[in-house]
């Protein structure tokens, strides 16, 4: 896949995240405060639409659809799943941001998002350095 193609997909994704209000700190905060379910609704509808499309593609036998189906893989269960998800949820709550929306916020001119994204890069680098060790330790505990 050409870099220009994925760049364009990125532009569209960033635009959509911004237009649906996913880059709005208060929209995320109010969802977690159980006061406004706009973004939960966005995600729910997105999951339903994607599930229908991916379901059709995944069940294809032969033809163009089957060529796309090859990459449609579920993520495996990993020892760090629950701990990682809990850390992520805490980060999501503090910043009102997830990895995609943090980038879009920078484009929107939200200066604080620069810190969020720098933090994400630091956290990712920390995982590359120490993640496997954490996963081995968690694997031992769960056995």
């Amino acid at each position, binding site marked *: 896949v050409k870099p220009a193609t994925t760049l364009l997909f990125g532009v569209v994704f960033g635009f959509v995240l911004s237009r649906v209000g996913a*880059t709005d700190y208060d929209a995320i905060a109010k969802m977690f405060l159980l006061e406004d379910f706009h973004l939960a609704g966005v995600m729910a509808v997105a999951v339903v639409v*994607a599930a229908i499309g*991916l379901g059709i593609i995944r069940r294809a036998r032969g033809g163009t659809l089957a060529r796309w189906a090859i990459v449609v893989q579920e993520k495996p269960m990993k020892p760090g799943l629950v701990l990682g998800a809990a850390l992520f949820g805490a980060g999501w709550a*503090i910043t009102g941001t997830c990895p995609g929306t943090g980038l879009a916020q920078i*484009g929107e001119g939200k200066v604080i998002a620069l*810190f969020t994204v720098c933090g994400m890069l630091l956290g990712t680098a920390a995982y*590359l350095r120490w*993640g496997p060790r954490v996963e081995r330790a968690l694997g031992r505990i769960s056995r």
Partner: protein
Amino acid sequence: MWTAVFVERWPFWAGGIAIGVFVLAFLIGTRNLLGVSTGFADACAAPFEPKMRRSWRLPFLIGIIAGGFVASLLAGGSAPTTRMGLFDARVTGDFALKALAFTTGGVLLGFGSRLANGCTSGHGIVGTALFAKSSWIAMSVFFATGIVVTHLLLRGSP
């Protein structure tokens, strides 16, 4: 029409359809499942692994920044701001403290998403749409901790 598309926030159903269709278009156009946090791993590895510098995920991440800029521009443009809504109102408006809090939150997002093997896009939208057990667990835990931590932070009680 212009206002509805470019200025006002999209209704939840329109936004949901747009993201759902985007997941499918992304698969067809790039032969990959949508995911953002893996791109951060490629970005972190790029200085050390020349192969990663050609990762298709890097221009995708840059594009997301550009997309936010385009959205803001078409909505009428807005000056850069250091404000973050309710966080300023209920936690602190102090720039240095906010920088510290959001960097810390970012570290949790970065480390957590790699440990969990996905974020809101890969697990939350795509994985749940595939009915993957790992993704439903991840998304449930994302929301459970998100709710508790937000209540502690903005309300002072869970």
